[in-house]
């Protein structure tokens, strides 16, 4: 039918099926600012439009409902590319991170300000109540609305209240408009799905309904015969190449324990057949025609079940080692089941798949047993964590196509270069020169996009069929076939003297990696390496065992094991304080790490290789604790006024790393343009964190030019130099430093040319803002230098590269304080106040650093109180939707939510910077557990702390 409506001010008549989803209709009309985060569940609001001026979700409307109505999207706001006050305010307040939700936020707030020019906090909360933002933690939106309100009256109104850091800098440590902010706020084409050309084939995966089964027979002949089906890949026609999907540096500490498709399925949602067709409908029809007979095996769902004697084996595979094969391998392989395929280890990770052990490691310093024997108080406790998912609003998505004989991968990835390497391997060793990975804007990564969970299949199919391929995960696939936090059980043993001095700390950690060994060694190790070094104790040890099972796959998730380790150890220390009759804050203060301390424990916590002891180069923990305690009025008991509701306070100290010293490397390149401005080619992958802005600032500061004079192009394997990828909190420290080094090299080249032009020695010259070289006798602008170097008699365009590696670990620190209200009768917990104080060295982008903290905290308030994947006895996820899984949204933001940057000047980081994002995930669970105990006297040792668990701990429920 023809539907007449007004779209962004213009009358339109569009032909559509009456039942066509309006989200699809708008996207096919080229309105890409409406996005899909929940497949039409109605829960994410990414698809929001204004319908007759009111925000509604376009996925819940059908085309026929538009008849005679007025539809507005953000596209209507862009007048000659200018930003509306709401758009510019959101960017300037730091609330635009990945930007996937931004158009929806803009519309919600435009509508709000239209009806209430001066809205209250409650009104703002209500306006955004339907917008799911996983990145930002929402808090900065209140400042953004205030700024927008002022800009509606005075377009020049400046952003206020953003702290400034670092003396003597122009852009470093100061607020500045995020370089990709305007594009994202305007809702322009930016994400993988926006790039797909008409005629692209659609890839849909047939997934296993069983958690553990062999494919006894698969017949895809009827499906292959269906017109419009392009290719069907099953284990029968897939290459016999093993790999791991973890996007880690090569050689990886994760086992190559899978092929593209296998004859054995190991989790509900495992790949059974990849169907490539001319359209989604055809692919789905083809899937229904594929006949599969399964030989169902007993599923193994917990690490305890996996390690039980006689447990079904997930990978009874033939084992191979590239280096370091253990003695007795041949005899061991005699027990392998050929149907289970192979596992290739790049080097030993102390696995034993014959008992489902995916990896293990242990180590320590001093003598833990002696330390415990010397203690006045010994505490032994066990903590467990449930499976939680990253839920980026943009799910995994990929678009692959051929360009001549080269494969182009448009990816939403954290690891373009690892992706290229892994795909090259899977194409049978094709050279990397044949593959180009373009990282588009990423609509949230959070670790899940560190792994290659769909790109390789799409790439393979494009390579063998020559056809362009698009695949986008459904929200359910995001839960069952992407990445989640490792489920862990952590036994903590602590010994202390009466005065609180720790004499021993030991972590015994059992992790459940699920069906494959992505990050199976390093995530659980990180739980130890980011928890133990927070304390100064001579006797420390850890033991890590990771087991295979048939739960949905786990892997990297912001924090990378540290949230689990931190929950266990920090809560145990608080429990110890109770045993000692001490204030938990005093116990932390007594034993915490300090600047200058030598962290010997890191010697045994290398990532699959020998570690290095590190001296703490900067540590802001002291002021973090001091200021946090003052802000929360630590030690002062607060009353709720309701006899059923008790208020308690909690604290935790936290740390992370800043990349992987000795393992990681980053590169950047900078070129001077004809007018003396620059283009910076940075390898680092910006996931919305502001890394491109960091890189631009490094260059602008060093080269004494304006931020606008630096164009950044990043994370394109053809165009930009190599970067390890966005993980391990390495962005600012590694990729930022590479940009700094490139700019410093450019500076040297500029000075050399200017010296020639001015007839002075380069050593006597200085760069001065804006874009000028000042000598004793005169000055020369960059534009003149560009003219000279790029002219017919010049030395050629100025270009420089920068590289960064280090053996230094600069550790970010922080203290999180919170107060909670616990309802004794209902078991409800409400976070009243949350103060996150963090030392990230010099905050390069203060407003974005704060946003990283708010976002990390809200995500982890999520796993502390609400989120969990619930599996049934057959390994099926019962709540694979945003609503049922219970993501926190703006209503879950604490009433008082404050992130505070406690700057230190790190001697090794670029301009003194350390990392900021992942660490923010480590404080919520222990601080909240600690506060719940303070309120009602019970310890919650398993997250999430649901009303049911609280009522059981209180003895209200048996």
């Amino acid at each position, binding site marked *: 039918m023809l539907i007449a409506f007004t779209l962004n001010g213009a009358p339109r008549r569009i032909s559509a099926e009456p*039942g066509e989803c309006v989200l699809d209709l708008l996207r096919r009309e080229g309105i890409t600012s409406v996005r899909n985060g929940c497949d039409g569940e109605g829960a994410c609001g990414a698809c929001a439009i204004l319908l007759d001026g009111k925000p509604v979700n376009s996925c819940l409307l*059908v085309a026929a409902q538009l008849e005679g109505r007025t539809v507005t999207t953000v596209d209507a706001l862009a007048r000659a590319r200018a930003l509306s006050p709401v758009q510019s305010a959101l960017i300037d307040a730091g609330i635009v991170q990945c930007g996937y939700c931004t158009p929806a936020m803009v519309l919600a707030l435009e509508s709000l300000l239209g009806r209430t020019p001066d809205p209250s906090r409650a009104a703002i909360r209500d306006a955004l*109540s339907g917008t799911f933002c996983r990145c930002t933690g929402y808090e900065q939106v209140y400042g953004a609305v205030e700024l927008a309100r002022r800009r509606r009256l005075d377009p020049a109104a400046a952003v206020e209240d953003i702290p400034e850091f670092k003396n003597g800098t122009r852009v470093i440590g100061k607020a500045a408009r995020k370089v990709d902010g305007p594009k994202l706020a305007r809702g322009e084409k930016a994400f993988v799905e926006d790039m797909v050309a008409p005629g692209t084939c659609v890839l849909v995966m047939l997934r296993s309904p069983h958690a553990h089964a062999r494919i006894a027979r698969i017949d895809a002949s009827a499906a292959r015969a269906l017109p419009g089906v392009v290719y069907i890949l099953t284990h029968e026609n897939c290459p016999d190449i093993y790999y791991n999907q973890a996007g880690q540096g090569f050689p990886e500490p994760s086992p190559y324990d899978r092929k593209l498709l296998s004859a054995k399925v190991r989790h509900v949602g495992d790949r059974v057949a990849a169907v490539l067709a001319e359209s989604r409908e055809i692919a789905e029809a083809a899937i229904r025609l594929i006949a599969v007979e399964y030989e169902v095996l007993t599923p193994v769902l917990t690490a305890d079940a996996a390690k039980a004697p006689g447990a079904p084996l997930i990978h009874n595979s033939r084992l191979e080692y590239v280096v370091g094969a253990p003695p007795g391998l041949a005899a061991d392989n005699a027990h392998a089941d050929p149907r289970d395929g192979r596992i290739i280890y790049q080097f030993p990770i102390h696995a034993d798949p014959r008992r489902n052990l995916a990896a293990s490691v242990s180590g320590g310093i001093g003598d833990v047993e002696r330390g415990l024997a010397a203690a006045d108080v010994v505490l032994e406790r066990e903590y467990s964590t449930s499976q939680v998912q990253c839920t980026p609003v943009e799910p995994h998505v990929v678009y692959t196509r051929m360009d001549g004989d080269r494969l182009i991968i448009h990816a939403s990835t954290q690891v373009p270069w690892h992706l290229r390497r892994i795909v090259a391997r899977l194409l049978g060793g094709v050279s990397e020169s044949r593959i180009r990975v373009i990282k588009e804007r990423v609509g949230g990564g959070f670790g899940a996009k560190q792994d290659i969970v769909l790109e390789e299949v799409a790439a393979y199919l494009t390579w063998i069929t020559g056809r362009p391929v698009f695949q986008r995960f459904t929200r359910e696939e995001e839960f069952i076939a992407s990445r989640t936090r490792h489920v862990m059980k952590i036994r903590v043993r602590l010994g202390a003297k009466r005065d609180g001095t720790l004499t021993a700390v030991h972590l015994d950690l059992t992790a459940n990696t699920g069906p494959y060994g992505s990050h199976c060694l390093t995530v659980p190790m990180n739980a130890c390496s980011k928890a133990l070094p927070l304390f100064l104790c001579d006797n420390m040890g850890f033991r890590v065992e990771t087991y295979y099972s048939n739960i949905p796959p786990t892997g990297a998730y912001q924090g990378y094991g540290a949230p689990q380790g931190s929950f266990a150890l920090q809560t145990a220390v608080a429990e110890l304080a109770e045993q000692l009759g001490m204030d938990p804050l005093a116990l932390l203060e007594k034993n915490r790490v300090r600047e200058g301390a030598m962290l010997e424990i890191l010697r045994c916590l290398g990532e699959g290789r020998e570690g290095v002891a590190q001296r703490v180069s900067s540590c802001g923990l002291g002021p973090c604790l001091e200021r946090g305690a003052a802000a929360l009025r630590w030690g002062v008991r607060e009353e709720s006024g309701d006899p059923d509701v008790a208020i308690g306070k909690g604290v935790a100290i936290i740390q992370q790393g800043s990349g992987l010293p000795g393992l990681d490397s980053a590169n950047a390149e900078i070129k001077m343009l004809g007018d003396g401005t620059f283009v910076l080619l940075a390898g680092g992958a910006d996931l919305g964190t502001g890394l491109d802005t960091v890189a631009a600032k490094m260059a602008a500061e060093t080269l004494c030019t304006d931020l606008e004079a630096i164009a950044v192009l990043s994370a394109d394997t053809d165009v930009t130099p190599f970067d390890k990828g966005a993980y391990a909190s390495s962005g600012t420290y590694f990729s930022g430093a590479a940009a700094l080094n490139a700019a410093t090299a450019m500076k040297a080249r500029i000075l050399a040319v200017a010296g020639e032009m001015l007839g002075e020695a380069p050593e006597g010259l200085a760069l001065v803002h804006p874009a000028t070289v000042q000598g004793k006798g005169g000055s020369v602008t960059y534009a003149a230098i560009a003219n000279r170097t790029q002219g017919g008699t010049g030395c050629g365009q100025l270009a420089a590269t920068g590289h960064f590696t280090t053996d230094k670990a600069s550790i970010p620190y922080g203290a999180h304080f919170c107060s909670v209200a616990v309802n004794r009768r209902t078991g409800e917990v409400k976070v009243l106040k949350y103060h996150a104080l963090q030392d990230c060295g010099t905050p390069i982008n203060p407003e974005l650093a704060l946003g990283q903290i708010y976002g990390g905290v809200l995500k982890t308030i999520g796993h502390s109180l609400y989120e969990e994947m619930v599996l049934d006895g057959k390994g099926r996820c*019962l709540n694979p939707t945003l609503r049922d899984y*219970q993501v926190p949204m703006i209503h879950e933001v604490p009433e008082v939510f404050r992130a505070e940057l406690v700057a230190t000047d790190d001697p090794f980081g670029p301009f003194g910077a350390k990392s900021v994002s992942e660490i923010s995930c480590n404080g919520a669970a222990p601080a909240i557990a600690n506060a719940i105990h303070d309120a009602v006297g019970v310890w919650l040792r398993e997250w999430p702390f649901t009303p*049911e668990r609280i009522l059981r701990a209180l003895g209200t429920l048996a």
Partner: protein
Amino acid sequence: MIREFHRPVTLRDALELKARLGGGARYLAGGTELNAISARAAEFTAIALDGLGLGAVAEGADGVDGLRLGPTLTLQELIDAPAVPPALREAAAHVANRNIRNGATLGGNLAARRACAALVPVLLALEADLLLCDATGERRLPLADFRRERPDALITAILLPAAARARRVGLRRFARTANGPTLLSVAVSCLGAPDARVQSPIVAVAGVAADSLRLTGVERRLQGHALPVRAVLEGWVREAVAPAADPFASAELKRHLAAVLVADCLARAAQRED
């Protein structure tokens, strides 16, 4: 998936269409339920209600002594209408998501028959009746009977008797997150002066049983007595409900919460003056 779409502008046309198409046709109000992914597998003909002019709030209209609410009022419009009783507006706000409230309608909320539909307990507590129309004519049915009978008729109005407006209501929605699924939804109302003997109590609990949400046994025990001590009332509710466990909450938890929330709601109702 909607195969065909009609937007009648008279009630008669709507009813005729429905009579002609029978079960193959569905009334489409906001579509927040019918157009959602979970409902897309079904094929049907949509009869849109937005052309019928059924979105008004009328006081004392049509010989009705109370308030007449149009079924296509959105939840947000209910909240924004000063004439609507505060308890009903509060319940509409329990659907925390404003984008949903801008689409979702009052009639859709009642007709969709979710176990924990936001407006059902409160409308039971306000003694709401529904006006239903089908090809055979119009009839007035108490909401509780509508829930039991599940007629395939068009809700043309929600009627709140004038007496209901004298009711004092206590409400509580229990969920992990504001936008997450509702575990329990409770509404308790009574007549009489604050803190006096409980008169004509209504206790409605959604989430513990499928159809009949009223705890009439508890209501009988309350009737005409002073507010019982909390523990006693909780005991009565525990006896009266028989919730089933689900993967997200045990039966024990639901029973406990039903008891606690009813007690809280009654206490609130007894004190409320609005």
